[in-house]
Structure formats: structure tokens, C-alpha cells
């Protein structure tokens, strides 16, 4: 399963990079979205895969009984998902406002710092 996921992650990365390299800015946004999902999955897989054993201490026990999924990777990803959402919302509104003001969605038109 790890090998399969490694391939899926590679595919997600490839798709994200390709979209990021487009001049259409909405495609870039989609690339960003895919990239953040891909990165989360990458961290998740690197933590090691454990089927159906969430890191929860059973009632009455002092500690969780191994094997259980890596809680640290999960905590990091949880933070990353939320921050990714913040980033995407901001980027989306930025793009939206730019399009409203400038009427263009081509990054090649966005060259000057002080238009």
C-alpha cells in the first residue's frame, strides 16, 4: 500500500506542478490546492501506515496499545489543512479582486510591480 500511495503522491505532485506552471491564474490556484493535499498525504505516508488503529488511549488504560497510527504526523497535518484553507481563501480573493480591477487572468500580464 505504501508503494501505491507513493505513486499517487507523485501523480498529485506532477499534476500540481503542471497546473502551477500555467499562465491562467485560476489553474495556478487549482495547482496550489492540489499541492497542499499532496503534501499532507506525503507527511501522512512518511509517518507510516497503520490500518484502523487511531491513536487513542482506551478508557481505563494508561497509554495506547501499539500498533497505532502516528499521532505527531496527524497533528502536523491537521494544522497544515487549516492553514492551507486560509492560504487558498486569501489567494482566491486576491485573484478575484485582481480580475475585477484588471480584467485579466494571464500571469504574463502581471509583470509590473507598480502598474
Amino acid at each position, binding site marked *: 500500500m505504501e*508503494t501505491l500511495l507513493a505513486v499517487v503522491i507523485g501523480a498529485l505532485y506532477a499534476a500540481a506542478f503542471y497546473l502551477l506552471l500555467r*499562465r*491562467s491564474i*485560476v489553474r495556478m490556484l487549482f495547482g496550489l490546492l492540489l499541492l497542499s493535499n499532496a503534501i499532507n498525504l506525503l507527511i501522512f505516508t512518511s509517518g507510516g501506515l497503520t490500518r484502523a488503529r487511531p491513536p487513542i*488511549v482506551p478508557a481505563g488504560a494508561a497509554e495506547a496499545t501499539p500498533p497505532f497510527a502516528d*499521532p505527531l504526523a496527524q497533528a502536523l497535518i*491537521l494544522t497544515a*489543512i487549516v492553514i492551507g*484553507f486560509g492560504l487558498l481563501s486569501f489567494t482566491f480573493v486576491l485573484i*478575484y479582486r485582481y480580475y475585477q480591477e484588471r480584467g485579466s487572468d494571464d500571469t504574463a500580464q502581471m509583470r509590473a510591480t507598480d502598474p
Partner: protein
Amino acid sequence: MLWGILAIFVLAALAPWLHRAFPRASGWLLALGPAALGGQYLFRAGEIVGGPPLVETHPWVPALGLELAFRMDGLGLLFALLITGIGTLIVVYAGAYLAGDTRLGRFYLFLLAFLGAMLGLVLSDNIFLLFVFWELTSVTSYLLIGFDHEREAARDAALQALLVTGLGGLAMFAGLILLGQMGGTASFAELAARGAMLKAHPLYLPALLLILAGAFTKSAQFPFHFWLPGAMEAPTPVSAFLHSATMVKAGVYLLARLSPALGGTEAWTGIVATTGAVTFLVGGFVALQQSDLKRLLAYSTVSALGLLTWLLGWGNPLAVQAGMTFLVAHALYKGALFMAAGTVDHETGTRDVTRLGGLFGKMPLSGTMALLAAASMAGLAPLFGFVAKELFYEAARDSVWPLWISVGAAMLGSVGTVTVAMMVSVEPFFGRYVATPKAPHEAPLGLWLGPASLALLSLAFGLLPGGPQGLLASAVTAALGEPSSFKLALWHGLNPTLALSLATLAAGGLLYAARGPLRRAFAAAAGPLSYGPTRAYEWTLQALKGLAAGQTRLLQHGYLNYYLLVFLVAILAMIAWPLLFHWDFHLRLPNSGIRVYEGLWAALIACGAGVAVATNSRMFAVVALGVVGYGIAFLYLLFGAPDLAMTQILVETLMLIVLLLGLYHLPGFAKYSRPASRLRDVLLSVAAGALVTLLVLITQQNPHPARLVEYFSKNSVPLGQGRNIVNVILVDFRALDTMGEITVLGIAALGVYALLKLRLKGGGEP
């Protein structure tokens, strides 16, 4: 001494407020500061001239061996008195010269800050402290030259002065570091005592050359002299103070200060004396071509600085005596002449001597003072300039150089000085009255007090040379590094030196009489004469700007895609290179088996990504992205991460809603790229994706030790009081991260709100 300097800086900071409170009297009030300090120095002068120097040390950065070490010997005192004395007069003069100007408060600020820095420079005993003040004078000079910053010429001149003196200053800094390493001390006094060792050191020549670069640029020596005439863009009080009497003498000061430590060698005499002599002659020659009062004075200042450098280059007692005497004489007459020139400009509206004449009747007082100062400049008895010139000729007759070279050069340059002195005094004040843009009147008190004080001091010192004698002897002692006594006298008797003086005056007078044909000749030769260091500077600056612009075009072209492309290629290369060339392990594929539904989900995710890339419909792409997101959420659920799955589903749903709502307002996908570049991007992306896959597989090779996991598992209940370990980590063990996350979200929300509310003014022009 530290407190005196700090007081001047504090006064500088307060100047704008003081000026606002007392707009009419501010010049007089502020002048009290340097006047009081100068009075204090004068009060202690007897003590310093007769006895040991004053020393004062405060710790600064002990770890680096830096200390605020001040030392006032004869040389420092001489400069400190010139700075505070002339500074006082200049502040008063500036108050009258720029009266009514709204920027006067700022002008005082810069001027007084410069005064403080200059004082620090001449009183520092630590070479690095000196450097700090040295750079401060460059910066304040920059601000003062560019004071009229709305004029391009003033800005360019300010930049030119800063670049030339700043580059020289950097070279000097390197030289000072070398010097400190060679001597094992940063104190000038101790370096002077180790002169013999320094001169024998293998690094002597590099250190000397670097330090001379600083001194020569600051003191406008050929071929770096061109910034000084440019600096005449500054208001006249600045020219009178910084660019004739004080700052430009910082280089000369450094030469005098270091001459016991580094002077007297063949290299020193050869480089310093020759540069000085060449500057003396070039300055005088170029001055003759000018007709603008301030530029006339500026080039004659270059010439005078050359003379000072020349004398310090020779370095024998007679030359140093002549140098110190001339230094004072020059500061007095040149300060007075600059202020007088400013007064003429102020009253008539022009500085062109060919358009001035017969002003003496309109401005008798200013005219008298200008004539007195010019007489001192020309070396007429009984003014102090005469005393200095006699000493200079004595030194030239008794030098290490062949007599005909030294006396010839001295005569030649001095003839030019005499002619220029007449051009700036006789030409505007006598002859036929010429109508000027403004009808001239006698200047107010503030405008003539400065020139009058300095001109009368020239006369007083000439008549009573015993007055400054003790101080000068003490300064000479400091510059020579050995005791020296000399007697100043107005009358040396009938000797060859006097004959030289008279011949110089006669030749200068003749040259002045022939000024008409002379100017025509220069005008005819204007083309070839315009080649010089200024051209080289302009060319270098243009080339540098061109290079910078070219580089910017190459690297900062503004095409986002290419930036990303470069990033991606660079990262790929950096990771792939070591992987491919240092491949030394066998890749074992971990095998935990694949269940059918897991494989299906994985395939679904990959398909979603593929559709998102390939589709031309935005709606389709959003749906495909949703498939990817929910698919990943389901994977989380399968592999023991219910919290992640929940969050992912929530966020994904929100994102889908936002996208679907917003996409309506955004344009459809357009195909901007050519097929070739799309193919290039596909190849690159696939390569990058493959590399990531490889990296993931490599990380699977050696499962990391799970000590942290064990810790969290053991302590989750006792320390965090929670059974869901992920939750405990988020809100307890790594709560600060969560805090940061909330902050980021808050800022993003604020940003979104601001962007949505922001309405750009002026028809959408940001």
C-alpha cells in the same frame, strides 16, 4: 570631550523645534552651542599647548576592543577650534542666508550634526571611532549637498560626493584594519610610538595605499578632485563650512595624524607629495577657466588642499610648519570669501563674475571684507596669508626635491592663486557697475558678521603672528611626532623668499589683467579640456547602471511562470544530482498488501487529479478537485486518522462552496501557452512527480525511531488529561503551533475582508 560632542548632536536634534519656536532668532540661539564649546576649548588651550594632551576613554564594545577614546593634543585642538569657531559664524550666517526658508530647521539639523561628527573625527584617538565619524561626515555632507533635493543637479552632485568619498572611506577602513593588525593597537597615540616597526612591516605599503585612498578622496586630491566643484550645488553656508574650511581638510588631518606612524618613507614622500603638488597645479589651472564665483573658489580650494597634502608629504619640520600655518590661513580666508560670495549671490542674484562689477559702492562693508580675505589669499602683507606663503616658499627652497621643480611648481600654482583671488574680489567689486538681476544693497548683520570676523582675524594674525604661534607649534609637534618650536614673523627681512613673493604677485596681477583673452582661449579649447576624471566617473556610473538594469531584466523579468520554472528545475537538479550519482542502496518496496477498496480509492484520487489537469471546464475541474480531497479524507479514515478525515471533509466542503460561488465571477480557462511549452511543462512535472515518488519510497526504507510517539502515548493521559492523543498534542504539547495557526487564519480572514472592501480610487488605477 564625549559630552561636548554629544551635546552638539542633541542640539542638532532639537534644532528643528527651536527654529519653529524662535524662527527669527534661531540662528543666533543655535550658534551659542558651538560657541560655548569653542570657548571651553580656547579656555583650556594654554593647558594643552604647554602640557600633555587631554585623554578621555569610555568603554564601548569591550569584546571587540572598541572604546570611545578621545585625545586632544595640539593638532586636535587646532581643528576643534577651527570647527567650532567657523561653525558658530556659519550657523549665524545660515540663519540670515536662508531666512524665511521653511526648510531652515532641517538645515540646522544637518549642519550641527555635521559639526558634531567633524569634532568627533578630529578628537578620536581610536582608529575605528575615527572611521565612524569619518563616514558620518560623508553622510551629513551628502544630505547638505543634496539639501535642495528637488533639483536634479543637487541630487547628482550629492550622490557623486557620497560615492567618491564613500568608496575612499571603505578602502581606508580596510587600511585602518590592516594598520590596527600591524601595530597591535587601535590608538593613534600608540601607533605613533610604533612608527619604526610599522614602516618596516611587510604590509606597510598596502595599508598606506588604502588609507591614502580615503584621505585623497576626502580631501579632493587629483584625480578624485571632481566631486568638490560639484558639491557647490549645496547652499553657500555649506560650501563655506564643509567644502572649504573643515570636512575636506579631514584627509589632510588624517595625513598629519598618521605622519608620525607612517610618514617619512620614500613611498610616503613620493606618493603624497607628488599627488599634492599635481593637485595644487591642476586645481589652480582649472580654477582659471571658471567664471562662477563658487566654482572659482572650489577649484582654488582643490589647489589649496593639494598644497597642504604636498607639504605633509615632504614631512620635514619646515614643511609641516608651513602646512599648519597655511591650513589656518586658508580656513580663515576661504571661509570668508565663500560667505562673501554667498552674500553677493544673495544680494545680486548672480554668481557669474563676468556679469558683476562695481559693487563696492553698493556694498562697501562686504566689499572691504572680501578684499581683505582675498589679500590674505593672494599672500599680501600684512595678512596671515602672507606669513603662510613666506613659510611655504621657505619650505620649497629647502626640500628634498630639486630646487627648480619645487620652487617652480610653488610659483606656478601661487600665480594662479593670486589671479583667482583677484577674480573673486576685484572683478565683482570694482570696475564699471553692471546691472544685476536683483538691485544690490548692503547685506544685513548676519550676512557680514561671518566674513568680517574671519577677514579681521586674518589681519590680526598677520599683524600679531605671535598669537596663534603657540597653538601652531603644538600642532606641528603632534604631526611631526617630535618636539618642535618655531617663531612666526611677518617680516623675514630682504631675502630671496620675499623676492619670490613679489614676483608671484606681479605675475598674478599680469595674468588677471589678461583675463579676457585667457577666457577666450579656454572657451576655444573647451572640447579637449572637458575630458577628465568627471567623464570617467560618469562613464563608470552609466556602465554600472546598465549592468544592473541588464541583470534585472535577465533575472527579474516579471514572468511568474518562468520564476516557477527556474525554481522547479533548480530544486529538481539539486535533489536528483546526489540521488543519481551517490546511489548506494537497494530499494526495498515495503509490502503491507493492498486491499481492493484501498486500491480503488487510490486510483480515484489519481484520476481526479488527471481530470483536474486535463479538463477545459472550470466546473469539471472543481468537481475533480473535490474528488481528490474527499478521496484523501477517506484514506485518512482508513489509516487511523479520524480527526484528519473530519477536518479534511469540512475544509474541502467549504472550499468547494467558495470556489463554486466565486468561479462564476472568474473567466473560463484560456489556453495561453504554446504546445511546445506545454510539452516542456508536462515533462518537467512528470519528472518532478517521479522524483517525489522516489523520495517517499526512500523515506520508507528506514522507519524512523518512534521515541516521540512513545512519549506522547505515555504522557497524554497523565500530563494532558486527554485520551485522543492528536487532540492533546494540538492543544497541549504543541499548543503554540495551534496558536500560530489561529493567528494565520485570523490574518488571512482580515486580508480577505480588506481585499473585498478595498475599492481603488481613480477608475481602478492602483
